[in-house]
């Protein structure tokens, strides 16, 4: 476990208080990149798997690179599944990024059936329109959600092959591999205090960092 704190006090403020993000360290993520993005935005970033440390932060961030079963196994191994589910019920804002978004689902079919965190209804299934979705693509925001609306039409960086099939009421933005109008897939989901982002906002340059800032500050009271 390690920690990191932001040095820029001019942004990332909620009123007069510096926002602290808790990055869930379950050994399967691009923690360093996400932490640098957060501190660059002026937030404190705490990388930890300690539930007291994570529970004391303003927002939980669940990053992830890799395969769904291995990630869920790591969350179970570190006794973080019950903790994350409990924090969601208590209303702590939670942001899942890339694989972290998929972990929010009820289940995944990647490498067989695996139960997820079950925080947003839906299943993670293989992308139908291509084997992979890698590179920059624009997102189409499908709701009036003020957290995401300003990012409508902007390009974000994607790197995945499975997608979150969520009911329309939880789908906040979609993208598509080609121009076919009926082949859009969810790239942002939201249920109350929980947001999932299929792309990597931390590696989507200005557009991604602006979105990340908007989502974090929009989720906080």
């Amino acid at each position, binding site marked *: 476990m390690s920690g990191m704190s932001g040095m820029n006090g001019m942004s990332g403020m909620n009123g007069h208080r510096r926002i602290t993000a808790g990055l869930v360290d379950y050994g399967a993520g691009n923690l360093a990149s996400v932490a640098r993005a957060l501190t*660059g935005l002026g937030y404190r970033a705490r990388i930890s798997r300690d539930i007291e440390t994570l529970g004391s932060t303003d927002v939980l961030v669940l990053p992830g690179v890799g395969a769904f079963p291995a990630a869920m196994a790591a969350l179970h191994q570190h006794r973080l599944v019950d903790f994350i589910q409990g924090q969601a019920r208590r209303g702590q804002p939670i942001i899942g990024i890339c694989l972290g978004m998929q972990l929010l689902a009820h289940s995944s079919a990647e490498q067989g059936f695996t139960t997820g965190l079950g925080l947003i209804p839906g299943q993670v299934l293989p992308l139908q329109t291509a084997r992979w979705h890698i590179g*920059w693509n624009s997102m189409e925001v499908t709701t009036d959600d003020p957290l995401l609306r300003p990012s409508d039409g902007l390009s974000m960086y*994607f790197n995945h092959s499975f997608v979150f099939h969520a009911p329309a009421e939880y789908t906040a933005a979609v993208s598509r591999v080609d121009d076919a109008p009926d082949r859009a897939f969810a790239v942002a989901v939201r249920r109350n205090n929980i947001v999932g982002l299929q792309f990597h906002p931390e590696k989507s340059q200005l557009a991604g960092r602006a979105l990340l800032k908007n989502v974090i500050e929009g989720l906080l009271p």
Partner: protein
Amino acid sequence: MIQKRLIGVITVKQGWAVQSIGYRRHLPMGKPEVVAENLDRWGVDEILLQCIDRSRQGLGPDLALLERISRKGLATPLTYQGGIRDAADGVAVVQAGAERIAMDSLLRDNPHRAAELASRLGAQALIGALPLALVGGVPQWLDHRNGRAGPIPPEVAAVLKGGAISELLVVDWQHEGQANGFDEALLDQWPLPSLPLIAFGGLSEAAQLRRVLSRPAVAAAAVGNFLSWREHAVQRLKGQLLGMPLRAPAYAQPCCG
């Protein structure tokens, strides 16, 4: 709609960014983290950091360099290549700040470990990197450690076809560093059409980049030191490529605040 990418390549030898010419001559340029910072600032779509002496010397991945680059807080996707021996190395590279991994020597020495890496990181995180040249119309794969080249072995082709990697970096090693030198026939003769390709080696001018990026099989074009010779080269090149399915030129920094 998914865009094709313009990738900036940083070649590193003995810890220094170098200009590489035909896999033979290497001219020092400066600190790789400074080159990375420039490419990030100029808004390149992706950065490929290739440390060319790590496998040859059995050093493993250069995690210290990745840490130094990570400290810069880059906002651009990073792919790392060099010295990766097994799944543990791959995980360490991702945790140090890379989104994706490119493999050459590991594919040659132990192609089945590529599949192990895919089970840990997912195939979307893995790129095969093959320095190739055409001999009699057949791609020959160079082993950069001993200078010998030969056809792609069946067991490696099976791994490439089997879904363990998501893209293939086709490196024209003979024309690397030579302006406008990329041998486009390499793309035509590549035998596994299902794999999206990244073209690299001698790509420098907009006209050739336009031809390469127009090919359906090509997902990205990678450009080395031609992007480092002048300020804002990424913006300039993308400006010349307007109309191609590339992300519009945009600066990555400074960040919002």
